[in-house]
């Protein structure tokens, strides 16, 4: 058998990607409504994780601001798509949510990306709390509400918008990784000072990438808000959405492009299964899975897959 065709990643990776995409796009035709809803949630986690990886993966800046941008998206939906009738078309609202998240990220990034290491992580986490508290204050003292209801949107529409965001995100992530911009971002993560002295405008590269990653988080938030139909500041700015992307990315493995994607997909599915099958022990089992991952798969799932792959094809294809 000719193994070279089989080995060539140029052929089978895009092929596989296309197959998965077709499978997803036609899901509402053969799958149940529950499947569509579940896939929407999984896609949401993938979007959060991969967009987190776009910035934090190569740059080494641990951002815990995901929940902030996600929440900004959720609130954009809540304000522009109230139950009494939409102000704007659904798709436009999603784009606006992405744009607002971008602006917030660029402003915050310009102020804070000079902070390094743990200081940056803590500040970004503080941002989630800050926006949440300001919003609570505003809702109580000005609008006199705590939560908001969102217009009902068709489940399939929600699914397809989420899928669209996912596709655009994957293309963006791929091109950033392959471009000179990606090389600059990596060099910042490896040695920021050397990058700056080699002509990289480090502040701009960091701020722009931070902004790009926030676009997708905001857009995903806007879409999922239509599914949740009721939100309040505690739901929208839940710090869990800052931590989950990090955990999912590590679970999948940061070494490979597809690592965070697989990690988020399996992680989200696992969460759903555990939550429905073992509602009382789900957090406990989940914790055990995480500890096991850290102990036995330090390179994440993809590390494990690669080891198996190398054994399968004879080992001469190290991680090229």
């Amino acid at each position, binding site marked *: 058998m000719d193994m070279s065709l089989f080995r060539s990643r140029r052929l089978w990776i895009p092929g596989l990607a296309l197959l998965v995409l077709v499978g997803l796009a036609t899901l509402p035709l053969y799958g149940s409504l529950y499947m569509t809803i579940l896939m929407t949630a999984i896609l949401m986690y993938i979007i959060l994780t991969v967009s987190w990886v776009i910035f934090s993966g190569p740059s080494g800046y641990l951002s815990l601001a995901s929940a902030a941008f996600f929440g900004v998206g959720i609130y954009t939906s809540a304000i522009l798509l109230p139950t009494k009738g939409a102000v704007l078309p659904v798709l436009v609202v999603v784009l606006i949510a992405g744009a607002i998240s971008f602006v917030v990220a660029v402003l915050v990034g310009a102020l804070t990306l000079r902070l390094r290491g743990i200081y940056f992580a803590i500040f970004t986490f503080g941002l989630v709390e800050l926006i949440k508290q300001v919003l609570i204050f505003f809702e109580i003292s000005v609008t006199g509400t705590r939560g908001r209801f969102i217009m009902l949107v068709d489940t399939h529409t929600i699914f397809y918008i989420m899928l669209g965001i996912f596709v655009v995100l994957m293309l963006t992530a791929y091109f950033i990784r392959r471009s*000179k911009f990606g090389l600059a971002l990596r060099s910042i993560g490896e040695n920021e000072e*050397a990058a700056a002295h080699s002509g990289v405008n480090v502040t701009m590269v960091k701020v722009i990438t931070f902004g790009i990653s926030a676009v997708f988080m905001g857009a995903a938030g806007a879409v999922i808000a239509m599914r949740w139909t009721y939100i309040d500041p505690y739901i929208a700015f839940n710090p869990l959405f800052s931590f989950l992307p990090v955990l999912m990315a590590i679970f999948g493995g940061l070494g490979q492009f597809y690592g965070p994607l697989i990690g988020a997909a399996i992680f989200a599915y696992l969460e759903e299964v555990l939550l429905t099958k073992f509602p009382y022990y789900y957090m406990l089992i989940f914790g055990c899975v995480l500890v096991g991952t850290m102990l036995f798969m330090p390179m994440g799932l993809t590390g494990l897959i690669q080891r198996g792959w190398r054994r399968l094809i004879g080992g001469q294809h190290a991680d090229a």
Partner: protein
Amino acid sequence: MRMLEGEKVTKYFGGLAAVLQVDFYVEQGEIFGLIGPNGAGKTTLFNLISGAFTPKSGVIKFKGEKISGLKPYKICRMGMARTFQEVKIFANVPAVQNVALGALFGAPKSVSTAEATKEAEELLDFVGFAVPKNIPAGGLTLANQKRVEIARALATKADMLLLDEVMAGLTPTETAEAMELVKRIRDRGVTVFLIEHVMRAIMGVCDRIMVLHHGEKIADGTPKEISTSKKVIEVYLGE
């Protein structure tokens, strides 16, 4: 023509004057050496020139333009590149891409990725890098990491190179190769400003030398003048 000029350059760390009222200039096409005991302020002066620090007072001019206060990437794009005392390379990035980064971002004119890679390969050959160019830079020997750093600096199409102790930690053979390389860099038309501890090396390659001590300039002149200067001998050898 004066390539680089500093006038009363001063930098304090807290109450300590790391660099105090230092005047210097580097002529186009020369190899200019900077020596001095540990803590004399040599690397601080490099950091001031390359934009890592801003001087508290004084002016630094490059090609006649004031550069003190500019961001490092701007100074780099004006044609000044540097290496570091502790090599700063991108450890998990292939050597050739380490160098290509300089061509992609540091050069005044933008180039395509393919051109940058080609330039990077040529420069790695030029600096005597003789191992596969796709090896991640972190796995290279110190001498080769320094070669990568120099190639990256050259890739920015720099007219002037600041070399901070390129010979430290090298074997005698490697030191000789490095000296040779410094001369070849100058022959390409690049002005070289270097900090060095290896006396034999600096006396052998430099056209002029400046000596710093406790942040102040105590002497400058030709290698011969420096090696016979009473003040310099006092500082280095004690009375």
